[in-house]
């Protein structure tokens, strides 16, 4: 995972609540044994017609969405399945942060393992962002703040451990492996 300090980008907005992981990447694209190249299937059934042509009206397909690295969506983004293919697809497409008033638990956890920054904001900020697609925002991981175009800064929850992992590109497996002594002791004591 690459270290992330700052993200500066215009936003692309999907103004829907409860966007589930089946929309982010439909199940038929999970028949893969690698984690690469899933970006082309991101939001497949919203982005493409049945004949494979791009739907020009869909937000991600509009010319002004080109290069946007921050996705804004309605409440409860990423609900549903535990598929890590969802953050893999977003990252492969070029999205590096997701902003919503609520982000589903498993999606949030999977995002943090891959360097996709999940940002939960208050209702007012969320509403403003939904109403202003293309807003230029900047995200500071160290300070856990989102800066809006008017210069105001909104803090978002990002606990110290995951903040450290994002800033340093640290993979959490290394941390678990370093706890070998404690794990072995637990197994010794608790194994029924």
């Amino acid at each position, binding site marked *: 995972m690459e270290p992330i300090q700052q993200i500066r980008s215009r936003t692309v907005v999907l103004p829907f609540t*409860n966007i589930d992981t*089946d929309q982010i990447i439909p199940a038929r694209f999970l*028949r893969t*044994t*690698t984690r690469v190249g899933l970006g082309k299937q991101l939001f497949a059934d919203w982005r493409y017609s*049945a004949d494979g042509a791009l739907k020009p009206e869909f937000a991600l397909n509009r010319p002004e969405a080109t290069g946007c690295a921050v996705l804004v969506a309605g409440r409860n983004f990423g609900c549903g399945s535990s598929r890590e293919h969802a953050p893999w697809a977003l990252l492969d497409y070029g999205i590096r942060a997701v902003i919503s008033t609520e982000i589903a638990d*498993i999606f949030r956890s999977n995002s943090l393992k891959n360097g996709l920054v999940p940002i939960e904001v208050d209702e007012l900020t969320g509403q403003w962002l939904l109403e202003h697609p293309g807003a230029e925002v900047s995200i500071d991981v160290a300070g856990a703040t989102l800066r809006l175009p008017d210069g105001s800064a909104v803090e978002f929850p990002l606990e110290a451990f995951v903040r450290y992992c994002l800033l340093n590109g640290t993979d959490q497996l290394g941390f*678990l492996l370093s706890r070998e002594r*404690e794990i072995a002791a637990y*197994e010794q004591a608790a194994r029924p």
Partner: protein
Amino acid sequence: MFQKVWEQHAVVAETPDTPAVLYIDRHLIHEVTSPQAFTVLRERGLKVRCPDRTLATIDHSSPTRSDQIFGGVPIAIESAATQIAQLQRNCVEFGVELFDLKSDQRGVVHIIGPEIGFTLPGQTIVCGDSHTSTHGAFGALAFGIGTTEVGHVLATQCLLQRRPRTFAIHVPGALSPGVTAKDLILSIIGEIGIGGGTGYVLEYRGAAIRSLGMEERMTVCNMSIEAGARAGMIAPDEITYSYLKTRPRAPKGDAWERSLARWHTLASDPGAKFDREITIDSSRLEPMITYGTNPGMVVAVSGFIPERRDDPVFDKALAYMGFTAGAPIGGQPVNVVFIGSCTNGRLSDLRSAAQLLRGHHIARGVRALVVPGSQQVKKAAEAEGLDRIFIDAGAEWRESGCSMCLGMNGDTVASGQYSISTSNRNFEGRQGPGARTLLASPMTAAASAVRGRVTDPREFLNG
């Protein structure tokens, strides 16, 4: 109950700055969310720490047609065949037990764990699948994880976790005839909303829960994630113990007695505090069905599609479904009926569907697919002659698998078609691009198959 299981498994307690290191007793894996995790192990030269705590099966992408499983016909979808072959290779290389394609123990991951007694009370259980919450029916702390975390558990048998909050759902009273565990959990999701459980572990309590059999309790816990909760739990009791006692991998003899003594201490203490609580009036529940594109968009089968003003997301859902606000849901046309999945693919589910279908034929033009949750469920159903009832009624009878629940294995619903499904998700495209899914109980699905339109199963029960 949750706190007890959590504290018993905390290898390292959480601090304000760092998550807990939580020990995992049982790890279930399948072909779709594990290959990338084994790749990481291979790249880093790591082994599977506890192969005896790990069990693999093939369910999500496997075909359900007998000729592709047993008849020597190649698996029709090449990428599925590749994924299955990869799991077979990974299990051999890393020494993990696999219920392979032709094994009579194979089945949907959340059906087989309990079925063989791999799932036990008081355990921590994880799987790279969000419906792992199913195993909470035994008083286990069971939740879905992503593929990176599958790798963490394979390598260290541990996960880094923050302690969730607790949410008690009290269900006093008793369910009326024709109202099932599926109707209860759909009502609960409708009540608290699909994000209402986010950040919580649910605990289902009360007389209506206690009166449910283990298979019905699994149906309830299975859909906890559809309310946003990673886990749902029910305290173990005599019904739990009698279900488990004869299971092949449950403890035996003295070990059984010792386990039983430990399990008796699991239930939440009287007066236990929860972060949130609600009470559901079970006596007023009716058979339920979804009308929209998430499991919280649910009404009584006898009810009406709601009307909402100035809600474009709601309008989008109704447009996708081709439904009109204010119309009755009963009588809406049905093209496909799917009975199966980790929610409703157990023997009691098949029995309740068969009870309704006996002596009837499905309506002209309706396609019905009955997919047992495991090969053991299939065998038991055939021993009772349920397969004959389904086949005589005009339904297809298949090998076990996730099948039409998520349409990644060849079993799909065509665009624009209406499917009454006993599965767990009615998201857009879940059963195939453009497919329109209505979630319901096996009884409602069977009744609707016979009439070819959404039908209240109580019309059949009342003669």
